Structure formats: structure tokens, C-alpha cells
């Protein structure tokens, strides 16, 4: 008989998430005008920031521009970074703003982040199927990252952006709300919808018996 109690979500520290010891020294050096220190920080976070801007804009060109502008803005405003948050979290907020501007420019009518979200009966999943252990291990790294990019791209902007910040970038609910100008309950309802929708979509790849 399986236990009803679940372990908490296991967030493994990825190599890219480990804050290296030299980070505050690099930020200080960059603040003092050391361009190569700043370039080291860029090299450290460019992959994550590009994934972020890509997932928000869903457009390669916009994602590149938003990333460039985010790093440039970060450099210009480095003096205002006070070091009470992580440098990366600060950078994420700048990048989110740049990416949202691109998205709104391209799809002005589609992107209202604060629309009412229905949390009704229709969210209860039907015909649920089990995935078995370590479903992601059934796919090669590149194949998995293609699947993830695709399924997150299928979500409507308010949901995918909240999911991106909260569950991928691991901002807190409050930080996510602040970055997007949403209330905490609004973030929570979008996050719930996003997680359920992604679970549903991923089901076709991960359900048991889907022997890859």
C-alpha cells in the first residue's frame, strides 16, 4: 500500500543554480566598472535568461533582443542593485520586463495578465493515469528539453509566465506577484491552472506503458 503523504517537491540544485562563491566579488567589480567581471556574470546566466525570454515571447528574435536589452539594462543600473536579493533574481526581473514589452508589442490584445481566472469544477482531471517513477529519464536530454519547450509554449501567456517565474526560476509567490504587478491570489490561481494544464499535456509523454 502506498503512503498518502508525499515528499515535498524535490528541487535539485543544478550546476547553473549553484551560486558560486565569487559572485558578490564579481558584482562588486562590475559595479566599479570592470567590464570583464560583468561579462563573466553574463556568461554564467545567459542560457537561463535566454530560456526565460524565449518561453515568455515564444519568438526567437524577440527573445534575443529581450535578452540583450536585459543584460545592457542590468549593466546600466548596476549601481541600484543593493545586494539584498540574489543577483540572478534581480536580473530575472529585468529580463521579464523586457520580454513582456516584446510580447505586448507583438500581441497587444492577447496579453492581459490580470484577467479573471476560473477555478471551477472543470479543473478536476478525469481519467487520470499514473506515470511511474522517473518518467523524464525515458527521454534523452535534448528530446526532453524540446518537449518541455513545446508544452510550455502551448500555455496562454498569463499561465506560462507565472509558471516560468515561480516553478522554473524559483521566485517566491510574492516575488512573482511583484515582478508581474499581480496580487498574490492571482499568482496562485494562475500557477494552479498552469500546473494542471502542463500535467495534462505531459501525460501523453509520460504515462505508464508509453515505452520510449
Amino acid at each position, binding site marked *: 500500500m*502506498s503512503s*498518502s*503523504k*508525499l515528499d*515535498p*517537491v*524535490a*528541487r*535539485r540544485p*543544478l*550546476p*547553473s543554480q549553484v551560486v558560486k562563491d565569487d559572485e558578490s566579488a564579481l558584482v562588486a567589480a562590475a559595479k566599479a*566598472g570592470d*567590464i570583464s567581471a*560583468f*561579462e563573466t556574470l*553574463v556568461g554564467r546566466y*545567459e*542560457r*537561463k535568461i*535566454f*530560456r526565460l525570454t524565449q518561453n515568455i515571447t515564444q519568438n526567437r528574435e524577440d527573445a*534575443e533582443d529581450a*535578452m*540583450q536589452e536585459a*543584460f*545592457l539594462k542590468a*549593466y*546600466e543600473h548596476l549601481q541600484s542593485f543593493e545586494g539584498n536579493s540574489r543577483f540572478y533574481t534581480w536580473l530575472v526581473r529585468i529580463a521579464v520586463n523586457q520580454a513582456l514589452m516584446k510580447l505586448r508589442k507583438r500581441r497587444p490584445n492577447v496579453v492581459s495578465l490580470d484577467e479573471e481566472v476560473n*477555478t471551477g*469544477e472543470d*479543473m*478536476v*482531471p478525469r481519467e*487520470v*493515469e*499514473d*506515470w511511474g517513477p522517473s*518518467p*523524464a529519464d525515458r527521454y534523452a*536530454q*535534448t528530446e*526532453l*528539453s524540446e518537449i*518541455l519547450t513545446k508544452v510550455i509554449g502551448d500555455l496562454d501567456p498569463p499561465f506560462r509566465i507565472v*509558471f516560468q517565474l515561480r*516553478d*522554473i526560476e*524559483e521566485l517566491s*509567490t510574492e516575488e512573482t506577484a511583484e515582478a508581474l504587478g499581480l496580487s498574490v491570489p492571482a499568482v*496562485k490561481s494562475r*500557477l*494552479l491552472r498552469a*500546473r*494542471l494544464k*502542463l*500535467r495534462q499535456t*505531459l*501525460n501523453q509523454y*509520460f504515462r505508464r506503458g508509453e515505452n520510449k
Partner: protein
Amino acid sequence: MKCKTIITELADYLDEALDPILRASIEEHLGKCKDCRIVVDTCKQTIEIFCNSEPAPLPQTTRLRLHEALAKRLRRVRA
């Protein structure tokens, strides 16, 4: 407790942001309801799959363009 309540509390449950009483009654329901158990578990796996995935390296041209733009603008800002 109904299955619908499990769903509406799901996000807070996974984020461990529920008060202990509500949490206990959810766990009691999960002990009896296989569907809800699977939904909670696969939802948890969904989050883990995303948050544990490393981003792909930048495409070569994207990387070049970024570093060119930086080199150009940064040197000008500081000049």
C-alpha cells in the same frame, strides 16, 4: 472532503503552505482516493521535471550577437 477541494488546494499543498489541519484532511483523502493521489503525484513530477531541467546552450549566432552588442555598448557607456 471532495476531490474538487484537493484540486483547489493543490498548489498550496505542493508548496507546503497549508495549515496542518487542512493538510491532514487532504492527506486523509489522498489515502482513500487513488485518482487524487495520482493527480497530486504527477503534478509534483511535472514541477520537478521543469525545475530540474538545465537550459540548452545558446545557439552560436545568438551568443555572438549578444557578446558583440555587449562589447559595443558597455565600452561606450564606460568610455
